[in-house]
């Protein structure tokens, strides 16, 4: 039991008749939204203790990355937090650009910001609507998934894929935004707010929803920082840490947006912070879209990473060589060690890359926020009910793919 003031138990600390039971919440339980196990020690509905098991879908991404050429690591990052894979893709691309020391054109930055903020919206929509589902309100979920569908159609326009996007390249985008993308984005920006407000009205001030989520799975700012929380979950606890502001990347310093913070760090605060972040993301997208600079959609400085156009490959010697080297994964990189972090869908997603100059990373470590949240989960649900535990898990937005990597 945490001794934080807001982590208040619902019941007295003693069990009624000293009888406790063990309950397996997971690995395949509808509430886990993925595969991870919680072995709960319960007295009736109250959780006395819990033990977490991770690794059910561990796919050894870090080891896998050591065997792969740099370009081929992007698809691996898709499968981390699959609710916002574009952020992962671009975080990795920016890490690589940091390592090889290339400055991408401003336009690429702005394009990336648009895609990343769309991904953040999609991620938060999934998280918040699933909180709704876990409280029993299914309807908001379907409303929001229509909007997520619109975002996925935008991804489709940019890269052709929807869930595992593999969007963008090291050095930019493989092609400029298509005319259809512009049409769909304008439509999305125009219509999204109305539908989002509807969802907001459905849950935010709903008495039952508030009773359910307020004081469910709280964590204090101190404990959250101790654990290494980042992202919306830390901001819900009251710490205004946001990678986009603290260490701006991809020209985030150009945009005007607010960082919402909560006070209690409970499920309701996490919900509210995410709701507000969606609105702020929309603001960023609008700014990025209206102020989109002219220029190229890729950096011409990295021909050894950015695949040349097919026409050039057949007509120009250099292009053919680069094409061969990129496809065969034979591009050497400078020796070095970089850490680059982006504000992922649910926290600071960091890439710690050590290169020994070879064709593959010497070591690549992903700083996965979900892994960190899940360590705090036992403490957060101690003394709460099973219902609260389910809500806490969904509001932390622990995604199995990222947790187990």
């Amino acid at each position, binding site marked *: 039991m945490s001794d934080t003031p807001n982590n208040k138990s*619902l019941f007295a600390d003693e069990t009624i008749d000293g009888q406790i*039971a063990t*309950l397996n919440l997971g690995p395949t*339980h*509808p*509430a886990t939204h993925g595969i991870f196990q919680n072995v709960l020690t319960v007295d*009736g*509905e109250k959780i006395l203790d819990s033990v977490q098991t991770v690794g059910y879908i561990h796919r050894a991404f870090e080891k896998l990355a050591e065997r792969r050429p740099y370009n081929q690591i992007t698809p691996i990052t898709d499968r981390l937090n699959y609710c916002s894979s574009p952020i992962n893709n671009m975080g990795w691309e920016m890490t690589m650009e940091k390592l090889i020391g290339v400055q991408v054109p401003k336009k690429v930055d702005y394009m990336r910001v648009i895609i990343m903020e769309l991904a953040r919206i999609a991620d938060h929509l999934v998280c918040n609507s699933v909180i*709704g*589902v*876990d*409280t*029993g*309100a*299914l*309807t908001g979920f*379907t*409303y929001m998934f*229509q909007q997520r569908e619109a975002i996925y159609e935008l991804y489709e326009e940019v890269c052709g894929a929807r869930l595992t996007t593999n969007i963008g390249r090291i050095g930019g985008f493989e092609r400029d935004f298509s005319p259809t993308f512009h049409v769909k984005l304008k439509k999305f920006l125009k219509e999204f707010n109305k539908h989002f407000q509807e969802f907001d009205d*459905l*849950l935010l001030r*709903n008495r*039952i*929803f508030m*009773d*359910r989520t307020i004081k469910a799975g709280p964590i204090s700012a101190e404990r959250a920082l101790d654990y290494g929380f980042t992202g919306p979950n830390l901001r819900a606890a009251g710490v205004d840490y946001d990678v986009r502001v603290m260490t701006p990347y991809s020209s985030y310093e150009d945009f005007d947006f607010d960082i919402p913070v909560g006070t209690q760090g409970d499920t309701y605060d996490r919900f509210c912070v995410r709701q507000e972040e969606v609105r702020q993301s929309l603001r960023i997208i609008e700014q990025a879209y209206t102020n989109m600079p002219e220029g190229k959609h890729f950096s011409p400085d990295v021909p050894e990473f950015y695949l040349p156009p097919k026409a050039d490959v057949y007509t120009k010697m250099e292009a053919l060589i680069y094409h061969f080297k990129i496809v065969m994964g034979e591009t050497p990189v400078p020796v070095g060690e970089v850490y680059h972090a982006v504000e992922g869908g649910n926290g600071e997603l960091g890439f710690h890359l050590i290169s020994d100059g070879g064709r593959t990373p010497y070591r690549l470590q992903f700083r996965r926020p979900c892994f960190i949240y899940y360590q705090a989960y036992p403490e957060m649900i101690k003394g709460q*009910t*099973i*219902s*609260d535990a*389910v809500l806490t898990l969904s509001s932390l937005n622990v995604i199995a793919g990222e947790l187990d990597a």
Partner: protein
Amino acid sequence: MIIKLIIVVVLFAVTLGIAAYLTLMERKVAAWMQDRIGPDRAGPFGLLQPLADGGKMFFKEDFRPTNADKWLFIIGPGIAMFTSLITGAVIPWGPDLQLFGETISLQVADVNIGILFIMGAVSIGVYGIMIGGWASNNKFALFGAIRASSQMISYELAMGVSVITIVMMTGSLSMRDIVDQQHGFWQDGWFSWNVFKQPICFVVFLITALAECNRAPFDLPECESELIGGYHTEYGAMKLGFFLFAEYVNMFISCAVISALFFGGYNFPGMDYFSGNTLAILGTLVFFAKTFFFIFVFMWIRWTLPRFRYDQLMHIGWKKMIPIALINLLITGVVIAYTEGWFSKDKSNESASNAKIEQPLGVNTSPEKTKTGNSL
């Protein structure tokens, strides 16, 4: 006797048929609210979907977990189905029908304790859930069963008290009497339906009926996000079908009881212009229309509201519903006593608020009460 038997069979078939099509209605309503299409593959507009579902349920493997109690595992869904079906027996489905020179009452049994029968049957219904949940030998099922039983006990009290209020007003436990007293729509200067005389009682009854049917926001016994399937986690095939079916039958009966107790049953405005079989048919149709309206309300609530937490559910049941129902009962008692003349010594003290409530209650048409009124 033959006629009664026919009515029993017809009622049985109608209840089952309606329950089956309620599953389709639920899915269609949900789809409508969630901006989806809903089932539309089986038959036109998905009308054959319930048959397809039922067929699927029947032909699936009748699975029983290794450590489950064999007989109780079967008895559980049986009780749930049985109790939900017998409640329909005392509900008056329509005015008397004249057929072949005989008066046929559209009710299986006009027992003089109709309401008590319904309450009793409903409370037995929870045994099915309890037994089923316990016999599954699964902790989630047991949790569901525990939640179901405590929920039933808590909400049955408030439901009982609100029914007592109605019984006090009408002076009868028979469903037919209660419905008949709500004749027409406007009587003696006030609406004749009980909902206008006892709005608080109606709200309490509606909420407790939701809880008794295990409908959202009180669907804790089977809340899928926490307890997987609750009490029916381990059930499959038609045994699961029985549980789900019983739930829809319960919802249908509950809505019928609500419309009978509070919305005048088969009474409708302007019913005095009709008589005989026209009235009987119209009345039955009106009764079903009212019932389906409440079924729709139940579904509407389910697809709108989140569900409560277990302790909040108990809190609402014991600390809100029961006191409200009791206070309402007390006020009703005082007003009835006032109109019956218990405080008649000092008539000039008649307060405005009392007079206001007296008006709706002053519609008692039973002869002895009229006599009491005259003797004042």
